[in-house]
């Protein structure tokens, strides 16, 4: 039996077929492309349709399509839903939540089963199609009243909807919302709600050539299109597992954290408290960082941790779609503006320079962060080297000198430098390195144990991270099926000496910290043929052999 050989490629191929089908059927004519310069070449995917597709590749993704009416946003989502889930178009159409100011909770969430309530006195909830559907569409979300927005907030945040005493847990879904800010009866969307949309794309008018073609197309109100089914929901959910298991390159990972920090840090006030929102322009006056190439002055609100996670998530999806082995910096930089622009409150003073085009301004911010990131990178690398026990006095000096020009160095790096110069830390990290080189498991475990008592918490966590970074370079991937995983769960629990029962309730990611190695088990679905991916970070092969044996050889190791 061959397991998953080429499954990823096949799924990827199908996704491109879906994009081709959109193009062939002239469903969404926007000849604008997203260009990605990846290490293995330059890739182009259609801008809007590409992002709509990307949103379907991340687990429980939520996307906002921002633009005027009549540009084909809803139609694109509907047809892509058909292509990617094989759900009949009528069913997708029936579950669309068409927003209006009068939409109350009952119309969004569900209603009580009146017959049962009258006859038996039971409060049984009949959930609305929208809540139960996999492919969720909210049309014109800006027309939802604040109370209706709260219902969506809970759905997007926890995947939970409550009505009376009943709770509906939406474990797997893909959500899209369209937004037309110029519409009448528009309510402002709250910042927390906007933050829950992983990605947002501005849909503009098609190009002139596209318009010419659109005019010639048959009227789809009269002649319905026949859209093929390319993928099933199960297959799409399988993609989620592969996307989730994509590793991120260290530099790309660093950029994600730095982007969030650069936006959130301020030398004078704490942006989290909200003071900045009130007095932003005044606070920046005379600040030494105002005239530098910094972004702190552009943004009044910090970037949430959720935004960071989303950036990682969508970057993984794009990298996976392009067939890359890991997520490079170029992919993160490409995705970043689409993840941040709708979540931040910008300074009007600077936004004006961009004609109040929030997306263009966000792109400028990402480019600015990238510039300073590249300038700072050798310092960050020297800092990582220092944590790895390599002391270069010249670089340490440079880190300290950069304090006055760089917020990240000032608040996040420089204050910790001296901690890693302490003898105890340098000695232990040195011992750890030589043990890693000679692959002596017992010695490594002893050093890590000793570090707990001899080092302070910051030093200890740095030492652990250093060790984990070494482990991450030796990533092995084991892919099996959920049926096999379930069948051999007891054996696996014994081999790994861990309680794995939680993995039977997917979607879950379980991290197993063994003393000197780490495993991540990604289970997306409980169908027998759903993939289970085990990322093993280890210096030794024996654990791989043990897992393979426990699974009866029914797995693929790469």
């Amino acid at each position: 039996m061959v397991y998953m050989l080429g499954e990823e490629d096949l799924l990827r191929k199908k996704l491109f077929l879906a994009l081709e089908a959109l193009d062939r059927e002239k469903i969404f004519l926007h000849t604008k492309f997203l260009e990605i310069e990846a290490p293995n070449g330059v890739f182009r995917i259609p801008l809007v349709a590409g992002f709509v597709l990307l949103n379907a590749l991340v687990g429980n993704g939520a996307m906002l399509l921002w633009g005027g009416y009549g540009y084909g946003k809803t139609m694109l989502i509907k047809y892509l839903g058909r292509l990617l889930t094989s759900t009949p178009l009528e069913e997708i159409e029936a579950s669309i939540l068409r927003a209006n100011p009068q939409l109350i909770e009952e119309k969004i969430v569900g209603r009580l089963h009146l017959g049962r309530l009258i006859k038996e006195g039971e409060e049984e909830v009949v959930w609305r199609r929208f809540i139960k559907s996999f492919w969720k569409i909210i049309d014109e979300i800006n027309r939802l009243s604040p109370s209706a927005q709260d219902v969506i907030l809970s759905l997007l945040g926890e995947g939970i909807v409550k009505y009376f005493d009943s709770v509906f847990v939406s474990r797997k879904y893909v959500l899209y919302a369209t937004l037309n800010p110029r519409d009448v009866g528009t309510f402002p969307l709250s910042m927390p709600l906007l933050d829950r949309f992983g990605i947002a794309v501005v849909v503009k008018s098609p190009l002139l050539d596209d318009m010419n073609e659109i005019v010639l197309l048959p009227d789809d109100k009269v002649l319905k299109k026949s859209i093929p089914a390319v993928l099933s929901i199960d297959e799409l959910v399988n993609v989620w597992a592969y996307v989730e298991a994509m590793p991120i390159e260290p530099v790309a990972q660093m950029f994600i954290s730095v982007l969030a920090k650069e936006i959130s840090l301020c030398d004078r006030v704490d942006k989290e408290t909200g003071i900045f929102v009130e007095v932003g322009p005044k606070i920046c006056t005379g600040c030494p960082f105002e005239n530098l190439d910094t972004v702190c002055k552009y943004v009044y609100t910090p970037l949430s941790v959720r935004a960071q996670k989303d950036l990682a998530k969508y970057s993984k999806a794009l990298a996976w779609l392009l067939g890359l082995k890991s997520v490079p910096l170029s992919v993160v930089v490409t995705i970043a503006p689409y993840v941040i622009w709708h979540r931040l409150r910008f300074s009007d003073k600077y936004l004006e320079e961009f004609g109040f085009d929030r997306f263009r301004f966000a792109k400028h911010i990402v480019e600015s962060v990238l510039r300073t990131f590249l300038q700072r990178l050798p310092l960050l690398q020297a800092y990582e080297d220092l944590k790895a026990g390599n002391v270069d006095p010249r670089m340490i000096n440079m880190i300290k000198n950069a304090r006055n020009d760089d917020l990240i160095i000032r608040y996040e790096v420089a204050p910790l430098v001296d901690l890693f110069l302490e003898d105890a830390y340098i000695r232990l990290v040195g011992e750890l390195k030589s043990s890693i080189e000679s692959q002596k498991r017992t010695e490594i475990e002893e050093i890590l144990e000793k570090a707990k008592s001899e080092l302070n918490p910051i030093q200890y966590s740095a030492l652990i991270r250093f060790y984990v970074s070494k482990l991450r370079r030796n990533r092995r991937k084991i892919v099996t099926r959920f049926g096999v995983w379930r069948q051999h769960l007891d054996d696996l629990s014994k081999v790994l000496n861990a309680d794995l029962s939680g993995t039977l309730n997917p979607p879950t990611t379980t991290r197993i910290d063994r003393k000197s190695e780490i495993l991540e088990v990604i289970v997306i679905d409980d169908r027998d043929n759903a993939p289970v991916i085990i990322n093993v970070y280890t210096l030794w092969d024996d654990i791989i052999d043990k897992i393979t044996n426990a699974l009866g050889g029914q797995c693929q190791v790469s």
Partner: protein
Amino acid sequence: MSYEMPDLDALIKNFEEYIAKVGKRKACRQLVELGGVSELFDEKIERVFELLSEFCGGLYVAKFKQTLRARLLAYGSPITPEFISTFGITISQVISNVLDPNVSLTTLKRDFDKIAERHKINIRKEALVGLSSPTLSDAIFLSEVFWHFLNKIGMLDHPEFLPMYSSCLKRIGDKITVEKTIISVRPLFYVKSVSVNFFEDVLRSLSNNFDGLLGFSISAAYSMISYMLQKGSAIPSISSLLAALAMDSSEMLAVYERAFLGDESLVYLILNKIVSTYYRGPIFKVIDGILSGKLRAQNAIELLLHTPYTTASIQNIRQTLEFIVRVSEKLLSEKGFERQVFNLITKIAFEARPAIIRRFLETDEGRVLLIELIKKLPSRLVLVALNRLISTYAPMDRIPGRRSGEDPELLETLNSIMPNWRYALDIKTVKYLNLK
């Protein structure tokens, strides 16, 4: 009662006494006169400035500056009297030698050896990131000593240094050589207060000088490479520079990748961007730079693609195409070469003045060159671009007449790359290429 006029040494020594004897006005006037004729970078000039400000007042200081300015101008020195009065003679002389195109690298090296010894600047040439060209390596080494020297004496932190130094740099922007630019712009990357506008100003001051822009690119690339490879000892202002070059994220990532790998082609990546954004000089300078072998062929093509052709002359177009013909055989197999040539011909067609293109096409030389290009670079893409150029600009009535039979080699080439060329090419092109 008359007094004999003392020499400058005596006057400086006994200036107070001399004032008492002849009066302030006369003494001050004589100090200005004598100071004005002393050696340009004589240490006494510093003392003259001190005495004038202490005893004579602003008017005499201004007069002395005026005298000095005239002399500096006559001498061809880029240094200003303000620079001398602010930073003193020693530094002014060093900087004058660095900026002066007439001072050779050998002289500069001799000066810098002394400076390095005096200020205990210990830089080993072999410890630096190597460059393939020995002359450029020498310039890089001197630039390293130069900025370390300025840093050591605190100049890079001086608030007046940047504006004054840049005004000196602007004075010789059009004349400065590649090597001198490498040395002179290097400290700018390490000045803390350097802004995007500042880099823009400097690049604008070099905008007519291709050699200057090349030197700037080398210096910038070297600063980045040595820092990225953690061989430098200070942080260059990469962020402001990238902003001044208006690089988008993919260009920035390309810069980072090449700098991180220590790849010298980073120079050309920066140069291409600088030339397309700032270069306002004649194209022949770019072509001269290319022909002198300062650039590798592949990089040169890329550079030609970034050069504005709005002011190109017939000779420039000819030189450009000659260069393409010359490197065609070598680069034919290189990925993307055909596309580059296609883009270049299209760019010339779009940007150069129609009258110039027309006159180029009218010449026999031009026609021979284009036929040679088709033969040397048998590409459908290039043929399409040439067809467009010829059919748009070659005047039908003045197409050079056929003087000989069809060129069999050209026929063979056309048949191989575009079998239906007789229908696909414009009638003008067919006639122009001397074909039936």
